Every structure is written in structure tokens, then in C-alpha cells.
């Protein structure tokens, strides 16, 4: 296995940490989208609030899925 000299840590462990960090930040972004959609539908309701909220939640759950998949397979 490839290791970083001096510190003796696997390159792939560092890569995994970076990917997980990026996905964690993305999760926060997905949560912000849910909040944003809530704010928008509260302001202007055009009769399409439920599908828009559903997409926002679907996107968030998909992000959570990828995060846990990354923990498992990386």
C-alpha cells in the first residue's frame, strides 16, 4: 500500500478523509437548500410547494446515501 513518507499514513486514507470532508460540506449545502425551499414556498405559494419540497428532501437523502456509501466502500 502506498504510504506518505515521514508520517507513514496511507495515501488512500488521506483521500478518503478528503472525500468525506467534501461530502459532509455538501450535506450542509443540501440542508441549506431545504431551508431555502421552505423560505421560498412560505413567501410565494404558487400551488407547487409539495413537489419542490419533495425534490429538496430527495436531494438531501441522496447526499446522505452517498456519504454513508463513501464511509463503507472507501
Amino acid at each position: 500500500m502506498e504510504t506518505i513518507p515521514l508520517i507513514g499514513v496511507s495515501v488512500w486514507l488521506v483521500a478518503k478523509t478528503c472525500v468525506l470532508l467534501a461530502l459532509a460540506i455538501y450535506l450542509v449545502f443540501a440542508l441549506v437548500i431545504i431551508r431555502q425551499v421552505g423560505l421560498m414556498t412560505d413567501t410565494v405559494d404558487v400551488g407547487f410547494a409539495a413537489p419542490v419540497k419533495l425534490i429538496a428532501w430527495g436531494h438531501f437523502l441522496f447526499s446522505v446515501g452517498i456519504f454513508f456509501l463513501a464511509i463503507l466502500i472507501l
Partner: protein
Amino acid sequence: MPDVFVAEEKKETKEKTPPKTLSVLEILRSGKKPLIPSGLDGHSQSAFASFNFFPEIVKFAAKDPSERMVLFIRKHPITNLGWILLTIVLLFVPSLLDFFPILNFLPDRFQLIIVAMWYTGIVAYAFERFLDWFFNCGIVTDETVYDVDFTNLIYREISETDIDHIQDVTVRMGGVVRTMFNYGDVFIQTAGEVPRIEFEAVPHPDRVAKILRELGFREEQEEKKQTSL
């Protein structure tokens, strides 16, 4: 005895009634809760309508309950074409990895996660652009003009001005696409705190300007009535 000749029955065809073009004043005259005739030109029950004259399905939180919503506008749907095409192109980028194996130095499990992240990012991009189009809108009531802008993820800006503060309405159209699809910008110069309200790339800009002028005229008449009393 059988008939020798039977004339063909004339099929009664329902003539399509042309959309009714009533002015704002005519509709508002019908009382506190205006009666909206069926087939009113510009009136729609669709949530995706970019131009909705006397919308019934729209609820706006900042509106005063006594106000009557006259117009709901957002950017013309054709303005979404750019990001829709870009999204479609970006969706096919991972399939190019077969021809340009730039991720081959990574193990398969890393490649899988990166491709999944790519698709999630595209979904987020497309969704953000859709939200931007869907919720950035202009609302005209019989008393006020509102411009609702969601400039970034959690920032909301609602500019408003009273109809009687409107000083000038400018319509800007130009270019092949805008002329073909009949959309353009409407600039409202006001004497209020917000010096200018802009409705960008809205359908039927001339009609928007006409509606604003009619509402301004109505306000003037009401003011005159009040001062004469």
C-alpha cells in the same frame, strides 16, 4: 320505402371562443372579489405560467389581505433553455470517461463515489436554477407592485412600491429571440424609497406596462374622488 338520398348531417363544430381581453379596470369594477370570466386572456391555472392575469392559485405572504392580486409574472420559460441544455450535456460527461480515462489512476471505488458526487452536483445545479426561475417573480396588486428576489441560498429581497408612486414605466425589448417570443424588461421608476423596480425578461412587457398605467389611472381617479369629498 328506403330513402334514395339522405343528406349528410352537418356536424356541429364548437367554435372556439377567442380569449376575452378585458382591461384591469373592467374586472376590478366587478367588486371586492373580482369575477374572472372564463377564457380571460392571460389568466392561467398553471403553476408554471410566466404571465398570469388575475391569478387565483398564487398566495403571497407580504400582500395585504385587502389587496387584490392583478398580475403575477416571472421570466419567460425560454430563458431556461441555456441551463437545461448545459445540464443535459453535463449528464453525459461521465460516459466520456470510457474514451478519456482520466480517473483510471484511482481505484474503482473512488471512481464510483466521484461519479455519484458529479450527478448529485448536477441535480443541485439544475434544481437551483429552476428555483431561481420559479420563485423570482413580480407581483402587481391593485395597490402595490412587488419584486421578489432570492439572490442567493438564504437571502430574500422584496422590493415594493405603491401604484401611486409610479412615475414612469419603461419597456425594453430587442434582439431576435426576445422579439420572436415576445418578452422583455419592464423598468418602473418610482418616487418611493425604492427608486426603480425591474422585471427582467417577462412575457408581454407591453401589456405589463399597460396594466400598470391603468392601475395608476385608477389610483388617480380614487385620489380625485377623495379630495373632492
